[in-house]
């Protein structure tokens, strides 16, 4: 449940950025998740895969990198131009 909230916010960030900059189709989302972020990466991956399979995303993949600390951020988007 917690991871679904996080995943929804990741999608909101991605969608906002795509719309604002008129970017192409999203094909990947890169996340940085700290060991102390309170997030289970596998659960987050599962939630994001489910959400990113739906419009307006259409199957973008998720790449989660780990780090020390409590970082939890969207690092980059990959778009098809």
């Amino acid at each position, binding site marked *: 449940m*917690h991871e679904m909230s996080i995943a929804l916010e990741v999608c*909101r960030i991605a969608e906002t*950025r795509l719309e604002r900059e008129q970017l192409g189709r999203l094909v990947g989302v890169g996340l940085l998740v700290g060991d102390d972020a309170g997030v289970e990466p596998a659960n987050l991956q599962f939630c994001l895969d489910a959400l990113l399979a739906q419009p307006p995303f259409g199957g973008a993949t998720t790449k989660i990198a780990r780090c020390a600390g409590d970082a*939890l951020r969207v690092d980059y988007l990959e*778009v098809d131009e």
Partner: protein
Amino acid sequence: MTVRVIDVRESVMARNNAIAATVRRRVDAEGVLALNLVSSPGAGKTTLLERTLDALGDELSIAVVTGDVQTQNDADRIARHTSALVQAVVTGGACHLDSLQIHRALEAIDLAQTDLLFIENVGNLVCPAAWDLGERAKVVLFSVTEGEDKPLKYPRMFREARYAVITKIDLLPHLTFDLPRAIASAREVNPTLEIFLTSATTGEGMDEWFAFLRREVSRTSAATAALRG
């Protein structure tokens, strides 16, 4: 396919934290002490609030926002102890409150007429630790029926909290709960944690809790008055 990488580097919590900052400005501007009560389910958040409203309801104006995954049961229980507004937030499955829910709940609360705002979070010692709601402090509760190593099992919550309330201490004679070890575990995770020992059933320790609330409400009100000049 030509793939371009767009640098983002945006915190997932940035939006929640921005709204929390707005909530904090609103309550601070009105001199309201806002406390976010967090615990596992059944630790006694609602009962602590009921006793607090009974004891302090005539001298302080207390508003409550309660969060539950389903039902308004906690809000209904608390509403029987106060004529002040109790706002229920049903999260519909989510395991924590977020700052937008608090921001919206405050629309129905007259902060200018409020001394103390309690936010009773969803019973969960993991997720609510990550979400700033705009409170002055998190107050973590854990009961003597839960195990003295709880702070070590859920360190982030105990690090995020400024105060801890160990509840149901009237049950200590019937349990193997090691109270000194529990306190040591909490202080190991957060050395500055201020700890209260309470029983809502016998009233033991409740006077210290009430005195703390009176003191902090007074401090908050004085700080706001000083800022207003």
